[in-house]
């Protein structure tokens, strides 16, 4: 017998949800086949889908931006808006965020829990790239950026924010009310800096930039040179 032909074509399921339609593609077969099956399913009911808002669940498939962008465009040809891509794959989630799409079907209630400090450390999101205008990173734990944060970009963290680079966008640490959160950067020149409910703007820089750490002291956001103590 020859190589078995993959008869397990990806299956596509469609159901209505509060925010429009949820289309689920299972994990069988290559993405190209899944995409084809999906477009076929939609093409057979093109009128039904015209103008629809669709969220897509791709299971564990890791999707690249080019693949997701292409699918969004192909769906656009049917008059469909792809607003969210749900996946267990971190790669796919990142791709969806970079294309400005949601990765969850509904906004989760803000997590009130503070992750208990443990010797093993706390949960943090590492972002190794330049954050340009219009990009937004939101994470319940800490956020660490290796790269610059340009004006117009925004970071919201439940915990601390560390920028190994120049911070010129908006940074909000301790977003769920933690006043002990800090913001550190090699060059701390944010458009606006928030810690918990307190807001501050950076004074114009004088002289050479040096690493600084901002924290709340006596109810005020203050930035102090980083001296490693």
């Amino acid at each position, binding site marked *: 017998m020859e190589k078995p032909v993959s008869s397990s074509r990806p299956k596509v399921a469609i159901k209505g949800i509060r925010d429009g339609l949820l289309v689920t593609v299972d994990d069988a077969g290559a993405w190209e086949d899944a995409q084809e099956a999906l477009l076929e399913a939609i093409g057979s009911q093109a009128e039904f889908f015209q103008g629809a808002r669709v969220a897509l669940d791709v299971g564990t498939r890791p999707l690249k931006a080019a693949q997701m962008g292409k699918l969004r465009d192909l769906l656009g*040809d049917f008059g469909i808006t792809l607003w969210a891509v749900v996946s267990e794959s971190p790669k796919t989630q990142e791709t969806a965020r*970079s294309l400005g799409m949601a990765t969850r079907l509904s906004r989760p209630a803000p997590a009130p829990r503070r992750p208990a400090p443990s010797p093993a450390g706390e949960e943090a999101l590492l972002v190794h790239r330049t954050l340009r205008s219009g990009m937004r990173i939101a994470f319940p734990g800490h956020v660490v950026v290796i790269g610059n944060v340009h004006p117009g970009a925004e970071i919201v963290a439940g915990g601390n924010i560390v920028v190994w680079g120049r911070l010129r966008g908006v940074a909000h640490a301790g977003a769920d009310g933690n006043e002990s959160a800090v913001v550190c950067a090699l060059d701390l020149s944010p458009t606006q800096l928030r810690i918990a409910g307190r807001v501050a703007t950076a004074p114009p820089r004088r002289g050479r930039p040096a690493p600084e750490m901002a924290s709340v002291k006596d109810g005020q956001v203050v930035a102090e040179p980083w001296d490693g103590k």
Partner: protein
Amino acid sequence: MPGTVLTITSGKGGVGKTTATANIAAALASRGEKVVCLDADIGLRNLDLVLGLENRIVYDLVDVVEGRCRLRQAMIRDKRLPNLFLIPAAQTRDKTAVSPTDMVQLCNELRQDYDWVLIDSPAGIERGFRNAIAPADQVLVVTNPEVSAVRDADRIIGLIEAEEKGPARLLLNRLNPALVREGNMLDAEDVLELLAIDLLGVVPEDESVVVSANRGTPVALDANSRAGLAFRNIARRLLGEDVPLMPLEDSGGLLQRLGRLFGKGD
């Protein structure tokens, strides 16, 4: 060898995308390259005006995509440069008349016969931008030395990266040397520091650009224009030549330069 698709975009409107497209196309064509310009700004077409070809439009991009004419029929040959062509945008439709998939197919066809396909992108970050960016091999971001234009350029560079079309290169347009010298305008270094991408060229502010655009004659064909020289240099860099950035102003006589040195101004 298939040609290169170069998309010229900006985010903000009015920074000189169309002028840059027309002039880079003319400069490439005058060096013997086969060039076709595609106006992707459906509903607000301008490239035909800047190239002085408006009165020869019969068919447009949307006619090609919707199958009302063959690709050849929509291509207008430039009157000065026999290897420069324009595919105009439709004026009576909007951006949704064309999809990114259509653009990819169209450019794959054009790529076979032309060395360069230059796409003039509309302003904005919506459908028109995605149409223009979908087929791109290279992307050129045009900005002016103004904070608002630079901020929008930063946004668009991020979107280009997200579409995996990067790294984009930068064209800094309308730099005013006198204002930079007085410290009242961002200079090329400031802008590059903000955007952190490679610079393809700097075009100085030059009245002859406006005059020639109104006449429908690209300034790149004017041997005496400094902006024209800047666009010709950009075309040479696209062709892989190593051309240094030109000095931004006529250096003037020795006395004048000395005067400047001693802070007398001129």
